[in-house]
């Protein structure tokens, strides 16, 4: 198996995540898409680690996961408070600040 496939997969996942951020309205889903992007990066890291023959990439993936977890905490808190106010988690509803 060529590790390159994993890289392509990772790029595809990253792109799907990015597109998801653009097309989905629900804040939670948008956020999940970002998580998808982060995990795509993890896949890349691990793959490169394999290609380069060093463990650094795999360790880095752990770091990323940790950071992602922290991000989730913050993110959900923010989304939650908005949801409680607006009774909606649609990112398009948060549209008071513009121009």
């Amino acid at each position: 198996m060529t590790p390159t496939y994993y890289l392509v997969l990772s790029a595809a996942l990253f792109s799907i995540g990015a597109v998801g951020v653009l097309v989905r309205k629900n804040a939670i889903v948008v956020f999940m898409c970002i998580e998808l992007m982060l995990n795509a990066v993890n896949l890349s890291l691990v793959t490169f680690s394999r290609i380069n023959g060093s463990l650094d990439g795999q360790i880095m993936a752990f770091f990323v996961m940790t950071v992602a977890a922290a991000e989730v905490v913050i993110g959900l808190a923010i989304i939650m408070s908005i949801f409680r106010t607006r009774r909606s988690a649609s990112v398009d509803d948060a549209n008071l600040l513009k121009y």
Partner: protein
Amino acid sequence: MSHVLFAAATVPTIKTPSIAYHAIAPILIVLGAALLGVLVEAAVPRRERFNAQIAVTVLGLIGALVAVGLLHNTSLTTPSPVGSSESFYGALSVDPAGLFLQGTVLALALMATLLISERSIEIGSPIVASAAVVVGSPDDKRLANSERVQTEIFPLLLFAVSGMLIFPIANNLLLMFIALEVLSLPLYLMAGLSRRRRLLSQEASLKYFLLGAFASAFFLYGLALLYGYANSVDLPAIFNAQRTSGKSDVLLYLGLGLVIVGLLFKASVAPFHSWTPDVYQGSPTPVAAFMASCTKVASFGALLRVLVIGFSGSTWDWRPIIWGVAIASMVIGAILGVTQTDIKRVLAYSSIAHAGFILVGLVAVTSDKGQSLASVMFYVLSYGFTTLAAFGLLMLVRDADGEATHLSQWSGLARKSPLVASVMTILLLSMAGIPLTSGFIGKFYVFRAAWHTAGPLVVIALLCSAVAAFYYLRIVVLMFFAEPPENAPTIAIPGWSASVALTTGVVVTVFLGLLPEPIVDLAVKAAHLRG
């Protein structure tokens, strides 16, 4: 760190590298203060909490500042290996430039702290008493008018500052990423903590968070690609790899591009600026001040390091990018600011334009023996103080709904308070780059650095600053030459903390305009990045 990891794969024994704790003392002090803040939050009774938090924060920041001052001649990377190893790069590089930026961040953060802790202007403070309470609920209304203050923001601020301290000295992209997150995550929260207009504040918080996370993902992907290219995320290693690596350059340039994007986002450079106006407008004003000054310093510091240490070998490849985004920033910042009606948005666009000016100074950073580096450092410092004071002044002009930020409410302000209007004028003139203010010296400095390498860019920058001058002057026109409106806002008298912060900002703005020699000298001496 990477050495450790690498070693683990091949050699079973783990050698503990030695860490120069003294060199990272400022970071440790701030982190320690932050943790202490968390403890205070848990242990100290509510009544004492506010003062305790201020004490912890201010002392922590001052302590860190003192530490930076003591370190001023240091130039080392840490951690360092116990034995010798040919390819070991410390993850943190404590060097003069880094210390200069750290000092700047700390000083600005101190001022921001003073602004946040201002309680004379508004009952409580500019910060919402309890962020968890639903907007508009009876509890919310009751709390809004109560003396109750919220003190979690201080530890949050300290955590953010610690991230900002690491950010510009991180010699390792992973560490840089973590610093980025450490500085960003508290900021996402802080953006949502406004006492008034909470809906806007929450929206700002959400937007900042989503876009920030989005940008982090790009940064991270870039990091991964660079790792793939160089088999390391140490900047010096990446630099070396460009000469030795047999891998495809596509990895390198994709990675570089994405990493730069992540950094430009934080620095609010167009076209990654779109969050800036909304977030500045929605955030509590002192938090916006903090973001506009400290974040900018830190992210430009990081950008400098990435470009100088990691990519000075491919200057000709990334320079067009800097040209492009600099022009985009200046043009967007200048032109879009012209028709803004909210003064905070004006300052936001101004911030975007200024990011462009800083980038102009950055163009030649790898090729002119530190001149550009010094100029950028001077610029972020002078701009930081000016913009912080400008945001601080916004807190003073109020109507029944809180701060009166609509431009029309500022007309005739000089009648009401000549002092506030005059001070604001000085700050605006500085932003416009009129001589005898720090803004002029800063502009001169960066443009001088760029002139040789990027003459046309300098001319574009000058023309953009002329356009941008329009909106600064428009505010002056309103304040001095127009009649006050029917519902003229009132001018609040600031307490000691905001007064200190504002005075410092204005004094630095004027001082650096009249006698910039000491700081210029400092910047010149500090214009040294260690790989």
